């Protein structure tokens, strides 16, 4: 076996953003299910929240390769 321990660490670090993104889209789906006409408003907000939560995972993979 070869490889870097960084990647194991990154896998663990990605759990947090994974849960966060899951919560965001769960809320989005709930919102659309309750009020389908609000979809276009919710979509932008959901993607914005997804992008902000995902930044953590993305910084993690950057550091995993850089360190």
């Amino acid at each position, binding site marked *: 076996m070869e490889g870097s321990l960084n990647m194991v660490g990154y896998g663990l670090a990605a759990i947090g953003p994974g849960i966060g993104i899951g919560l965001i889209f769960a809320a989005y789906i709930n919102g659309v299910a309750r009020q389908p006409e609000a979809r276009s408003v919710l979509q*932008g907000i959901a*993607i*914005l929240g997804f*992008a902000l939560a995902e*930044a953590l995972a993305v*910084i993690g*993979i950057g550091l995993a390769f850089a360190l």
Partner: protein
Amino acid sequence: MLAAEASEEFHSPGPADFEYPQIIGGFSKPMLIIVLGTLAVALFFYFAVRRAGIVPGKLQFAAEGFYGFVRNSIAADAIGREGIKYVPYLATLLAFLIVLNISGIIPFLQFPVTSRIAIPLFLALITWVIYNYVGIKRQGFGGYFKNMMFPSGVPVAIYPLLAPIEFLSTVVFRPITLTLRLTFNMFAGHLVLLLCILGGEFLLLHVGGLIGYTAGAVSILFGVVMTFFEGFIQLLQAYVFVLLSAVYIGGALTHEH
């Protein structure tokens, strides 16, 4: 394993796969893709509006649809009525990013140029200059930083904690996260594709046997599926980059009190 005489060992793809050799005199494949992408965007919009008519042709319809999407779904939502002024920048940014991202799944190009950090960094710096300039121009130099660091409606005791966080997040971390988000999404996506396709090729050609052929076929198939998924991610990330740029500009334009 049946045919374990695999002469060479499998080298998993890494950051080294993002370094391309020069074709001639410092001109490499990513540069070629940037030039082609810029030409594609420029020619598309040139021919789309060359004979602009009241009844739009197919190309003009596509260009107007694209521009209208940026105006209505990004600028109007994130900035507001003043957003019209920034639509040219946002539309150019979106077109450029879509072309450079999607080059990752176009046959023969197959390299998302935005996975090299210089390009997202430069575009993020342009956005940084724009939203800081707009904010300072609108609210004054002192007013801009005062509204940013000392928003009203917050207990005074929180200010020592809040002010440095707000300053750092607005001035320092916004361009950094904007850059890294795009870069490493493209980087990780390209890496996954490389792993699926190169791994599948290695299993089929160098390992063989029942396990090698089965796993190789599955791997290649998964690579094809991931290519389509990657196309979706590339469009989404271009949209996210432009949406966040618009949100930052909108935030700098409005007083928070």
